[in-house]
């Protein structure tokens, strides 16, 4: 599609083809980077300590930012897909209804200090919101969001990014990925034009020597993570085993609280509801969860997913079969939040490990 004449290829395209740009950032300048983002007029979202838990929130000062956790309690998905948002409002004027399109919702934002698993969730969800009908609420906010992520140097038992094709230092979804390669230096991989523009405007980054490499810095955590299950075996099993009694066994503990979907960086299902005042109202898009009975119940009372077994199976099927079938990507980045926060200790890793080992344990049942 692009012209064959080399002179018309813009410099930016050349950059894109030549892969990421490498720079370095002095570790003492990390806070200054947040400050620059704020000075440039962006809303900056970063991990902050809220009571005892680390969450992703909008910050007004770099001092609020806390970067030593593994992952935050909530993912940063709410920056692009707010928990609740107005999609239009309306007024009643002299008996007439006037619908007002909502078009002032895009405020540039920087997601700072998120983990590579969280950064990777955004391009995965792009596929859905850009599928056929364009959801401009996601798309435009997404375009106006810059993601500066930081590679993990540690993990916990719930982390499993390496099992779903990602890594503690993968660049998917990041505009800039920072990796602490020595005690006082971050290696910055600048993945997009947006990232390059930001890096240049901050004036905090230096040229990187050609010998710098992140792999030795993250080797230890990659080894600690290992592979918790064989992802290649999951979908072939799901394709054949919708009705397997395995589902009843693994979901028996599930109480349908829905926390797995709320903390998940890739769960995106939503509800549309009306809110009214005396002279107008609005249509509100809210997060919703497949774990609730009301999610699918028909007006007649009939429910196609009548029990927790079918609802829990839906969540796993959606992530590891339906989404790959329709949109070509696993709807999971291995952040481990659903494992960490489940009050009943339903463990996705254990379930997926079980699935990947069923064939070797029981033989294939076809």
């Amino acid at each position, binding site marked *: 599609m692009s012209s064959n004449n080399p002179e018309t290829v813009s410099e930016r395209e050349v950059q894109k083809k030549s892969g990421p740009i490498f720079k370095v950032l002095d570790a003492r300048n990390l806070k200054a980077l947040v400050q620059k983002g704020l000075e*440039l*007029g962006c*809303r900056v979202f970063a991990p902050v300590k809220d009571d005892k838990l680390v969450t992703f929130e909008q910050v007004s000062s770099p001092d609020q930012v806390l970067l030593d956790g593994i992952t935050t309690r909530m993912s940063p998905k709410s920056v692009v897909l707010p928990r609740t948002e107005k*999609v*239009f409002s*309306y007024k009643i004027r002299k008996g*007439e*209804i006037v*619908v007002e*399109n*909502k*078009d*002032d*919702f*895009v*405020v*540039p934002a*920087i997601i700072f200090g998120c983990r590579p698993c969280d950064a990777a969730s955004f391009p995965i969800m792009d596929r*859905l919101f850009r*599928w*056929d*009908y*364009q*959801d*401009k*609420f996601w798309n*435009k906010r997404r*375009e*106006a969001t*810059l993601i500066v992520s930081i590679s993990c140097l540690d993990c916990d038992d719930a982390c499993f990014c390496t099992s779903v094709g990602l890594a503690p230092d993968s660049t998917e979804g990041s505009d800039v990925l920072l990796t602490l390669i020595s005690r006082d230096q971050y290696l910055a991989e600048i993945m997009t034009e*947006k990232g390059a*523009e*930001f890096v240049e*405007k901050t004036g905090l980054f230096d040229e990187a020597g050609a010998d710098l490499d992140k792999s030795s810095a993250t080797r230890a955590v990659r080894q600690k993570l290992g592979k918790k299950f064989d992802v290649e075996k999951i979908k072939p099993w799901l394709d054949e085993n*919708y009705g397997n009694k395995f589902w009843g066994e693994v979901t028996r503990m599930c109480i349908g609280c829905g926390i797995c979907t709320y903390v998940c960086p890739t769960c*995106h*299902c*939503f*509800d*549309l*509801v*009306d*809110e*009214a005042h005396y002279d107008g*109202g609005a*249509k509100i*898009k809210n997060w*919703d969860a497949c774990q609730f009975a009301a*999610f*699918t119940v*028909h*007006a*007649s009372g*009939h429910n*196609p997913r009548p029990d927790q077994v079918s609802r829990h199976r839906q969540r796993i099927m*959606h992530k590891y*079969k*339906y989404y790959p*079938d*329709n949109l070509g990507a696993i709807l999971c980045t291995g952040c481990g939040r659903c494992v960490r926060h489940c009050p009943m200790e339903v463990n996705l890793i254990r379930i997926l490990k079980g699935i990947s080992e069923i064939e070797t344990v029981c033989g294939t049942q076809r």
Partner: protein
Amino acid sequence: MQNDASTAYSNVIESGEDALDNIYLPHLMVIKEIVQETPDVKSMKLVFQDEEMQKNFSFRTGQFGEFTVFGVGESTFNICSSQTWKDHIECCFRKVGRVTSALWQMNEGDIIGFRGPYGNWYPVERMEGKNILFIAGGIALPPVRCMIWHALDMRTKFKNITILYGARTVADLVFKRELAQWANRDDVTIVTTVDPGGETPDWKGKVGLVPIVLKGMAPSSDNAIALVCGPPIMIKFTLPVLLELGFAKEDIITSLENRMKCGLGKCGRCNVGKVYVCKDGPIFTASQVALLPEEY
């Protein structure tokens, strides 16, 4: 509105552009006519408030829309009129939840919101030149009725038209005046039935469940396509009868009705397996349905 923040990086979207590409924004429609079909079912004739919109609007028979009662909520209904009618659309609903109860209270001249048309439509080209058997149960006549009128408006393109419609009681039959209209035509065969105990002293139709009456009718499956809509339990017992009569699964068409919110394949609730009823459906053949898990 120029935001200072646009200096941070250049990909900032200016507000105000593309005001019309909001996929959740409804068009306003005026309720032109309301008919109370049964004690708890009404049908409505709707016209776009914007005349240009009405002129340019087109849909295919079998598609659905999202209907908003402002301040109350949005419901998914099949557009139960035919694509051959250009001056209005119709919808039909049972008063059962919050939105339909609010819609029930509305009057002619009131305004509701409409998004659509969404989903696929009946495979009309495939049905042309064939005998068509329409089977409907209860409140599921509307999604069949749109195709019945479509076929009647283009009558010469179809061979025999047979309609079997059943409801729990005589009072629950919807579109009664049209049932009479169809009965009066000599190019339509229509059988109406009510469940045992649902008949009135002057009831002249059949008494019995749809699958049993269908068995008695024994329509030929020769060069025929069957279109079946009804409650899951009716579908479950009607399908085997059709197969016994020799209908191929590819020649049995139905419309699924899972709960929806967006109608656009985003909100994530109407899927049956990997199939989204809103995008891939609502119209499926029995052979397609047979491949799906039972989540409908």
